[in-house]
């Protein structure tokens, strides 16, 4: 298996790094040269109008969407190498989607335990203990025997987060994870993500929750039409946006 050796990467270097990333669907260019560097433990938010390519961008990082040009590296591993060890990559990168995508035929606990058992072939006792601890963390210990259909959207989303975390990733990606939720359950999911960021997890979030983005991010990226228009600390992006497109977008959503 051809793989860039991990030894070349040190925590002083960006854990996720995108350079000149282009992506086209047919003749339609969705990403037109994206550069992002994320350091270990950083929390990064990507905001921007609908259709600007945020989901596409985030999905290139765990190799769900192959890029047309450019480089995406996670811990120094080139994600879009033909000979990439996908298992190695996906152990490092967890992703949570807008539509929780839990496995409906398995209980909450089984959902969380499935990947470590099947993929990592870990010891059942250890995985179970870890899964229970994670469910405790997302405050769903009492729901471990429930099936996804018996949970609210917010609860399902927290299970999805626990399921991803059970693979012990180094980076977590969140793609509009609160967009499908009722306003009152949005908060419980955001609190979960905030705790996670507080624990030092590297997080990349696509979100429409501007207040949350401002509160949690180390850095905010504003994207429009496949390009990063502006990036900086939240205070700069939200209080002193430089680009007229950022200003226009923020005036609409704030």
């Amino acid at each position, binding site marked *: 298996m051809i793989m860039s050796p991990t030894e070349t990467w040190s925590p002083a270097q960006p854990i996720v790094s995108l350079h000149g990333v282009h992506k086209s669907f047919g003749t339609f260019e969705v990403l037109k040269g994206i550069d992002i560097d994320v350091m270990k433990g950083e929390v990064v938010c990507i905001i921007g109008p609908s259709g600007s390519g945020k989901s596409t961008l985030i999905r290139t990082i*765990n190799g*769900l969407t192959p890029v047309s040009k450019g480089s995406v590296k996670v811990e120094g591993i080139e994600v879009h190498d033909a000979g990439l060890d*996908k*298992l190695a990559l*996906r*152990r490092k*990168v*967890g*992703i949570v*989607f807008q*539509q929780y*995508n*839990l*496995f*409906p*035929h398995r209980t909450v606990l089984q959902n969380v335990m*499935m*990947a470590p058992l*099947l*993929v990592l072939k870990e010891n059942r006792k250890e995985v179970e203990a870890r899964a229970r601890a994670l469910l405790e963390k997302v405050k769903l210990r009492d729901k471990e025997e429930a*099936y996804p*259909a*018996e949970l609210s959207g917010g609860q399902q989303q927290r299970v*999805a987060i626990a*399921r*991803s975390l059970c*693979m012990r990733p180094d980076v977590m990606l969140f793609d509009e994870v609160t967009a499908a939720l009722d306003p009152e359950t949005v908060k419980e999911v955001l609190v979960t993500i905030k705790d996670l960021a507080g624990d030092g997890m590297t997080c990349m979030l696509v979100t429409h929750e501007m207040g949350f983005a401002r509160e949690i991010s180390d850095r905010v990226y504003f994207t429009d039409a496949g390009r990063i228009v502006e990036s900086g600390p939240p205070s700069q992006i939200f209080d002193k946006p430089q680009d007229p497109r950022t200003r226009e977008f923020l005036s609409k959503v704030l």
Partner: protein
Amino acid sequence: MIPNWKVSRVTWRAPVLAAGLCLAAALAATAQDGGAARPSALASLVIWMPFILKGFGLNLLMSVLAMGFATVMGVILGFMQISPVALIRVPARLVTHLFRNSPWLVILFAIMLLVPFQMTLPGVGRVMIPDWVKATFGFALPVMANISEILRGAVLSIPSGQWESAESLAFTRGQTLRHVILPQCIRRMLPPWMNWYALLTLMTPMAAILGVDEALGNTQAAMEAAGARPEFLIPFYLFLMTIFFVFIYPLSVYTRRLEKRFAVAS
């Protein structure tokens, strides 16, 4: 989420209806009875019942074997149909559509005439292939093709998010199919699968045309042997229909229930 099925209440209506049909058969037989010297049509029927039931046993055997074969082959074909490899996908599509869109009787005749009545197997020597085995194979092919289609449809009906989240959790394609997709498909496939089983069972008397001694063939042989009187027709055929009815009706009630449950669940 898989609920506990309650079967107990499903079946009471079937025996009642069956008893009604039997009574009707008896009445019809008595009503048609002319001469006093000859045994009544009903009495003849009673004498020949074990013979007809024995034939029905073969119908059941053929239906179960054919369904088993059709299920295994249909699931394999169905998975082949969704393979990303064209070399696997295209032949599977071809076979599926060929057998799905041919008349059953034509397939049956073709199998009967194309498969030799004996084969020489290496190491075993000459093996006779009885007609009922060939007929079973003939019934299995169209059902196999339909199960292949049902599986393909069921897999496609699983939201793409299931594939994506499994892939993101580093599942291989095989693991995703086996642990995520297939279990969800089974729920969706069960009602149509049971429907096809019922249909298949109802088709098995076609084997009589080809000389297999199943229920229909035996019924006709019994009427012949009992004197071939026209008043036999109604009671004998009613009895035959009743046997199938008693077997199939609870199945179809149960299938309808499953369908309703799945409709509610999803």
